[in-house]
């Protein structure tokens, strides 16, 4: 049983703990701190605070308590046999991060960083968001811990994820539509960085993924690795063995690194990341930065990114707002370049087909982001055959994507869609209104 291109077999003799023990600022040649000098002190403070907190039993206990009583951890494992019939009969287990409070894995990281914000004595958090999942999670934690919250969101994304804009405002956050550049996630990050450099004394930038300058990639990974640690034990308890492959979607890469990390030093477990293939990798309209394979610097770290001949960032394209990002976290770039993890593009169409299938066969509506991982599982299951065991990170639920999916599949009449569009248009996303609700 082999997986073409997985690379898992290329380095079978890793020392135990070797790959799991990677720390920033560099992962191989990737990572670092390509930021204005003005931010260095804040990054140093954050790094110190995070290391002290991580070593502090009281901090870890508080985070565990919140996860147990608020997030809903541990998240369960669900076997999906009817779905798996379409995957060559492979046995497929879903790690249900979609059942977390706020509907995705994002809360794992957000609660950790929100506690750090309090520990640093800061009173305000800012965040970027694409699909709105990280923004909703940040707004939630800010409400819980009494922090001021500003969320930057590309104007294009505020339109396609209007419901999440409303959610954040209901939770008391100020949502600022970003109208520069491609008006998506990358521009939201630019604007958050500008806010941070201006207000760094009072403000923590609560970054939502394993990208950005050190210590964000390592710190966010450490807050997300609970996913894989739980799942590894759950799979062993249920099946008595490790999975043949672990699959996750990757935009910035936090849910993928979260579930992969516990398996990094299990050389027989293939790690497969599914990038957003958009209209198809060959069309150039995609968000598959690792598959494209060009090294560069974006948002504070050296990694792979989509760029033109002059190093200008290219616009990414994906039906999924959460994967619509032209870069990827540096640890993923390193895992790809060493061959430990495989990275494959999944088109919008393939992701939506997997989305439909999970809805119809299992009664679970996945986030479109996570549907990319499901599409990867369908393909991998067919490659590995009926004896194989696959673990898939179902990173988020699809409530936020109902409008997009309804349009894709044409399940609403034209009259319904007109009504839906009118409702969306009535949402004051441009005015910043509603924050004082």
């Amino acid at each position, binding site marked *: 049983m082999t997986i073409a291109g997985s690379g898992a077999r290329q380095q079978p003799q890793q020392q135990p703990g070797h790959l799991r023990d990677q720390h920033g600022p560099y992962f191989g040649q990737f990572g*670092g*701190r*390509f*930021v*204005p*000098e*003005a*931010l*260095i*002190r*804040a990054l140093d403070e954050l790094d110190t605070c995070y290391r002290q907190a991580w070593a502090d039993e009281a901090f870890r206990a508080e985070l565990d308590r919140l996860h147990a009583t608020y997030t809903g951890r541990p998240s369960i494992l669900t076997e999906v046999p009817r779905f798996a019939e379409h995957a060559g009969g492979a046995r497929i287990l879903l790690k249900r991060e979609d059942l977390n409070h706020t509907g995705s894995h994002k809360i794992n990281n957000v609660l950790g960083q929100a506690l750090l914000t309090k520990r640093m004595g800061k009173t305000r958090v800012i965040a970027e968001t694409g699909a709105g999942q990280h923004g909703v999670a940040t707004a939630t934690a800010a409400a819980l811990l009494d922090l001021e919250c500003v969320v930057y969101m590309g104007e294009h994304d505020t339109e396609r994820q209007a419901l999440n804009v409303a959610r954040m405002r209901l939770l008391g956050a100020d949502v600022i539509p970003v109208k*520069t*550049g491609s008006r998506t996630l*990358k*521009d939201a990050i*630019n604007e958050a*960085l*500008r806010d941070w*450099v*201006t207000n*760094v*004394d009072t403000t923590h930038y609560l970054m939502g993924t394993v990208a950005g300058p050190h210590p964000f990639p390592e710190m966010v990974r450490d807050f997300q690795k609970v996913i894989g640690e739980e799942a590894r034990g759950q799979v062993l308890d249920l099946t008595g063995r490790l999975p043949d492959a672990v699959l996750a979607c990757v935009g910035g890469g936090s849910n993928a690194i979260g579930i992969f990390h516990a398996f990094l030093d299990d050389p027989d477990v293939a790690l497969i990341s599914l990038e957003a293939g958009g209209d198809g990798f060959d069309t150039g309209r995609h968000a598959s930065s690792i598959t494209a394979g060009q*090294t*560069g*610097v*974006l*948002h*504070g770290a050296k990694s792979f990114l989509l*760029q033109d*001949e*002059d*190093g*200008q*960032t290219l616009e990414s394209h994906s039906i999924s707002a959460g994967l619509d990002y032209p870069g990827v976290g540096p640890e993923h770039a390193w895992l790809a370049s060493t061959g430990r993890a495989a990275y494959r593009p999944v088109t919008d169409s393939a992701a939506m087909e997997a989305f439909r299938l999970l809805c119809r066969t299992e009664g679970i509506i996945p986030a479109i982001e996570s549907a990319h991982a499901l599409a990867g599982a369908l393909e991998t299951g067919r490659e590995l055959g009926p004896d194989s065991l696959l673990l898939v990170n179902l990173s988020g639920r699809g409530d936020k994507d109902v409008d997009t999916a309804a349009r894709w599949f044409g399940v609403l009449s034209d009259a319904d869609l007109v009504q839906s569009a009118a409702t969306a248009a009535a949402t004051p996303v441009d005015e910043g209104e509603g924050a004082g609700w």
Partner: protein
Amino acid sequence: MTGSAVDQTGRTGARLEELRAAGRAALISFLPAGFPDLETSVAAARAAVEAGVDIVELGLPYSDPVMDGPVIQRAAQQALDGGTRTKQVLHAVEQVAAAGAPVVVMTYWNPVLRYGVDAFARDLASAGGAGLITPDLVPDEAGEWIAASDAHDLDRIFLVAPSSSPERLAMTARACRGFVYAASTMGVTGVRASVGDAAQRLVHDTRGAGAERVCVGLGVSNPEQAAEVGAYADGVIVGSAFVKALDDRGLDGVTQLAGDLAAGVARSRAAAATNSTAGTGKASE
């Protein structure tokens, strides 16, 4: 990295030393190449030099300028939308350098990385450029650039900020050639009502950490601010105000602003001299 005995004056430093001997600070302009179009941007930079600018910063437009406020963001985007390419910016350097003032390129790091760090240094040097200002590259990450700038005899100008620790001020001062760029405030580029005390303190601390020449940027937009900053810094860097002047009033606007700012800089030391030389921060002389 090379040894510490390397001469740190460079071409911009030499110009700053001449001006210091003449008793005034330098006026340094920033304009993005390609805004509103390539030809006009070159003409604007040259007009600025003719009207009294001593050192020119030419911006290499970048898609994700996180250190820039709305004025320069929009200008950079317009330059990119107009098809400005890195090679053209290097050619523009050559044309502006012909006006006689040292020209440094201000650029985010990825365009240089993509071009090839050594190749960029080589081509910048052969275009007559004096060096680079790198707002998102700290010396800690700059090994390749330090080697390339040594090899091609280019100035390398890193930034310090009000948040920089004494250790980082010293490390950055050692890494620079030409001058140290002091960001006057915590924030992005843009016109501000006042420059604030933090800038003067930062210049003082940066000199104390070993820097020979320190120029101040971020938020300086009018002759009064230029005079104020010119009293204690080696150079006064004006960006967004030049971009606005070019956008609103074309080349005449640039000429007018450069003249007004030059007058402000010229009277700064005169004013400082009448107040005695105390506190002007010329400790290194």
